[in-house]
């Protein structure tokens, strides 16, 4: 190769990256599949706790992973995939819930009785439990949004207060104070209804 050819090749050469891109795409696909296998269940439970509708929750999980596909170039930059994914699904379900506010609530007792664990209890006990849980969930819905969100996320055993803070984009002390207020408010709501009965 002459000097001019070498300069020309070094100056304007476009690397033939088809093979490299194919390999990179396969790596990303494998990483994405691993994320689905690892976190799909957790994301579904987060989505279901807000939407309380199995089909909507599954849609939200699918949408979460579709968003991940769109931003998979930044997948390597994510520090904690679990919290990152929960944050995405959390935003999706809150958005869906906000948009579906005009629709009737699906927190009916029959739906809860269908999904609640029923091993070792009678049908009457199951119905009573479903009724109680539906009532409690209705009280939770009456809480202010900030307190309600913290209370709902705190129900996930795998989420620490630091991770809840990351999901909501607030400080850990804010999480604690909101959780404290939420507990007080829900106690007040439950007491008020019990006394009125």
């Amino acid at each position: 190769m002459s000097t001019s050819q070498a300069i020309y090749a070094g100056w304007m050469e476009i690397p033939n990256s088809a093979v490299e891109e194919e390999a990179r795409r396969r790596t990303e696909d494998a990483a994405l599949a691993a994320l689905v296998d690892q976190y799909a269940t957790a994301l579904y439970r987060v989505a279901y706790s807000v939407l309380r509708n199995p089909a909507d929750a599954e849609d939200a999980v699918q949408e979460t992973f579709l968003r991940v596909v769109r931003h998979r170039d930044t997948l390597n930059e994510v520090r904690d995939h679990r919290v990152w994914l929960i944050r995405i699904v959390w935003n999706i379900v809150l958005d869906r819930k906000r948009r579906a506010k005009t629709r009737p609530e699906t927190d009916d007792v029959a739906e809860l009785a269908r999904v609640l664990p029923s091993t070792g209890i009678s049908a009457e006990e199951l119905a009573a439990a479903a009724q109680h849980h539906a009532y409690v969930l209705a009280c939770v819905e009456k809480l202010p949004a900030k307190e309600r969100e913290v209370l709902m996320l705190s129900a996930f055993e795998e989420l620490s207060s630091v991770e809840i803070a990351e999901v909501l984009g607030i400080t850990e002390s804010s999480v604690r104070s909101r959780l404290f207020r939420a507990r007080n408010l829900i106690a007040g709501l439950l007491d008020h209804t019990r006394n009125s009965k």
Partner: protein
Amino acid sequence: MTTDHHNPNPSARGPESAEETLRIVASLPAPEGLEDRIHAALGAAPRHARVLRWPTALKPQSNWMRTAAAAAIVFVVVGGGWGVYTRVEQNRPAKVIVMPPRIASPGGFSGAGAVRTPETIPGPAAPQVSPVKDGKKRAAKAGSKAAKKDTVTAQGAGQK
């Protein structure tokens, strides 16, 4: 934290009861085949944005295409520079406005270099009234006022 799924009817009442309910809802199992359905949805989703592809003969990787592109860039840069150079006129004499010479006043106030002073506009003039006519007018005005007053008094008496 433990949740007794076998006894979902909570005896506790208060915030613990609410949290227990939320824990039960949060720990519900995902439907079977969820992962498979998500894999299928991801497989069906478009992986890349749709872009226009170069024809094989015009691929940027080919050498002659690179040469042509480089030549086009050089042509545009040089041609643009030459166009600008030819349009800029050099050594052109600047336009000079010749001002009239300033006439220095011998003393006192100067005209502050004013070339032309506007003429003064004449102010409004009050009409001149002769004193005899003015006295007649005043007398006539006083007479009409007295007559008017008498008429008003007479009308008032008539009404009473």
